[in-house]
C-alpha cells in the first residue's frame, strides 16, 4: 500500500514540474550573483575606468567625427572593391572554363585561410618593399579625394572580403532557378546579357542579407588598420581610441570607440533581420 503511495508522489514531479524547479534554481543563482557584484564592485571606480566624463568630453569634437567618418570610408571602399571582385570570382566559379574555376577557388581558399592582418601588413609594406610601386590616389584640384592609404586599405580588406563574398554570390546565382537563364536565352539573349539582366539582379536580391553581414564584419575588420602607421587625418576609430587610451592610461576612449562601432553595426544587423523577416514572409 505505502509503495503505491510513494510511486504516486514521485510521479507528481512530472517533466514540466522538473523544468520549473530547474528554472527557479537558475533565477536564484542569477540574483545571488547580481547582489554579490553590486556589493563588491566599486561603482565610482568602474565609471572612472570606462566612462570618465572629462575624457569623453575631450574626445567629442572634430577628431572623433573624423575617425568615425574614416572608419566608414575605409569600410565602404573595401566593401565596394570586394563586391566587384567577389562578383567576378563568383562568375569564374560557375564558368565552364576549368582554369577560371581553379583560380577562383584557390583564391577563395587562400584569402579565407590567412589572417586579414597579414594581408594588410603585406599591402602596407609593398610601397617600401617594391621600389617605384605606389597604390593609386585621386586628387581633385587642391583636394585629395582618395589617398594612397585609402586605396591600400580598400584593396587589402577588399581582397579578403571578396573571398567570402564570392562564395555568397556564387550561392546566390545558383539559387536563381535554371529556368530563368533558359527563358532569357529563349528570348534570344546572349549568355552574358542573360546573366547581367536576368540572373544577377535576382541573385543580388537573395544575397543582400548575407552581404550586409559581410559589411558588418568588414566594419569591425577596418579596426586592423590601427597598425599601419597612420597620419593624424587618417585615424579611424580604433587607432584614435587606442592613442588616447594609451596616453591617459584609461579605457574610456576605447570604450567610446567601441560604442561608435555599435552605432554602425546595430542598425545594419537590424536591417538584416528586417530583410530576412520580409523575405520569409514573402515565401509564405
Amino acid at each position: 500500500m505505502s509503495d503505491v503511495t510513494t510511486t504516486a508522489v514521485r510521479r507528481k514531479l512530472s517533466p514540466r514540474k522538473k523544468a520549473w524547479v530547474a528554472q527557479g534554481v537558475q533565477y536564484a543563482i542569477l540574483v545571488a550573483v547580481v547582489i554579490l557584484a553590486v556589493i563588491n564592485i566599486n561603482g565610482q571606480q568602474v565609471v572612472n575606468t570606462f566612462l570618465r566624463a572629462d575624457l569623453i568630453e575631450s574626445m567629442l569634437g572634430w577628431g572623433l567625427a573624423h575617425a568615425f567618418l574614416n572608419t566608414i570610408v575605409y569600410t565602404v571602399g573595401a566593401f565596394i572593391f570586394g563586391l566587384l571582385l567577389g562578383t567576378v570570382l563568383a562568375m569564374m566559379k560557375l564558368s565552364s572554363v576549368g582554369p577560371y574555376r581553379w583560380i577562383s577557388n584557390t583564391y577563395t581558399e587562400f584569402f579565407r585561410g590567412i589572417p586579414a592582418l597579414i594581408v594588410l601588413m603585406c599591402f602596407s609594406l609593398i610601397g617600401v618593399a617594391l621600389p617605384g610601386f605606389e597604390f593609386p590616389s585621386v586628387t581633385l584640384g587642391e583636394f585629395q579625394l582618395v589617398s594612397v592609404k585609402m586605396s591600400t586599405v580598400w584593396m587589402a580588406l577588399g581582397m579578403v572580403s571578396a573571398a567570402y563574398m564570392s562564395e555568397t554570390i556564387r550561392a546566390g546565382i545558383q539559387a536563381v532557378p535554371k529556368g530563368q537563364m533558359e527563358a532569357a536565352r529563349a528570348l534570344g539573349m546572349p549568355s552574358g546579357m542573360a546573366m547581367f539582366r536576368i540572373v544577377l539582379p535576382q541573385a543580388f536580391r537573395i544575397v543582400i542579407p548575407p552581404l550586409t553581414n559581410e559589411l558588418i564584419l568588414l566594419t569591425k575588420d577596418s579596426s586592423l588598420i590601427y597598425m599601419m602607421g597612420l597620419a593624424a587625418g587618417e585615424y579611424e576609430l580604433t587607432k584614435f581610441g587606442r592613442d588616447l587610451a594609451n596616453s591617459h592610461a584609461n579605457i574610456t576612449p576605447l570604450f567610446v570607440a567601441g560604442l561608435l562601432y555599435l552605432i554602425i553595426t546595430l542598425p545594419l544587423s537590424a536591417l538584416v533581420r528586417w530583410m530576412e523577416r520580409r523575405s520569409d514572409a514573402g515565401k509564405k
Partner: protein
Amino acid sequence: MTETFTLPNGLVMPRTEFTTSAGEKLLVPSGDREEEVQIYDLHKSFGTLEVLKGITTKVNRGEVVCVIGPSGSGKSTLLRCVNLLEQPTSGRIFILNREITDPDEDIDEIRTMMGMVFQQFNLFPHLTALQNCTIGLIRVKKMDREQARAIAQENLEKVGLGDRGGSFPAQLSGGQQQRVAIARALSMDPEMILFDEPTSALDPELVGDVLSVMRDLAEGGMTMMVVTHEMAFAREVANRVIFMDGGVIVEEGPPDSVIGDPQHPRTREFLARVLDPTHHHEGPSAAAPEPQPHSNPNRRKRSRLF
C-alpha cells in the same frame, strides 16, 4: 558532292543527302520555305541515358503539332533541342532552313524567331508583366522603349491582361502568369512558338483561359509545337499529333487518327491511361474523347498523366 539550293530571299544553301532510319533518301535541308522546323535523325543522350533515339519530323508554316506521350518519353527534350536549350548528341535540325545544329549559325538570332513557353512559366520575377514583355524587344531587338511598350501592351491585351501590365509575377495567378509568358513570347513577333506542357502546373480552373489563348493563336495562323496532356485540346486544335514513347515517334498523323483511332498498341495503352487514370492495364481500345467545349470549364476533365 554537295548540291546547293537558293532560298526565295536569295540565300544560297548547301544541301546534303540524308537517309532516314526507314531507308528513305532526303536532301536536307529541303529548302522548302513552308517547312519551318525540320528535324533529321535527332539523338540526345544524357551521359549513358539515351533519351531521343532518332527523331525525324517536320513542322510546316501555320501548322499546330501536338506532342503527346508518357512522362519521361523525351517530349521536353525534343522541344528543347529545337531551340538548342539542349545540345543534340547527333542529328540535324533546321529552323527556317537554317541549320541550328551548325556551330557557325547564330542561335541567338534564330531564337528571336521562336518563342518558348515553359511549364513553370519562368517569368522574370524582378520585372513587371509589361517589362517581361519589353525586355527582349529593348535588349535583344534594340527597340526604343516607347515602341516596345506599345507592342507589349498590345500583346498583354491579346491574352486578356491589358490591365495587369504593372503587376509583378508574384501578384498574378498561375493562369495569368502563363498568359503573360505567352504575351512575352508573342512580343518578339516570332515565326513559331514552342509550348512545353503550358497548363500542367496550373490549377484545373485556370487551364481553360490559357488553352483559349492558345486556341486563338492557332486560329490566327501561328506555327505551334505543343507538348501537352490535354487530349481534348490536341484533338480539337492540332493539325497533327505526334505520339512519343521511349525516345522515338511511335505514331504520327492527324488527331482524328492518332487520338481517335490509334493504330499502335502503345498509343492505345497510353490513351487509355490518360483518359482513365485508374485504368492501369492495357485497354483493348481507347475510346476517343470527344472534343469538350472549353466554354464550360466545369466539364473539363484534367487529363494529366501521373
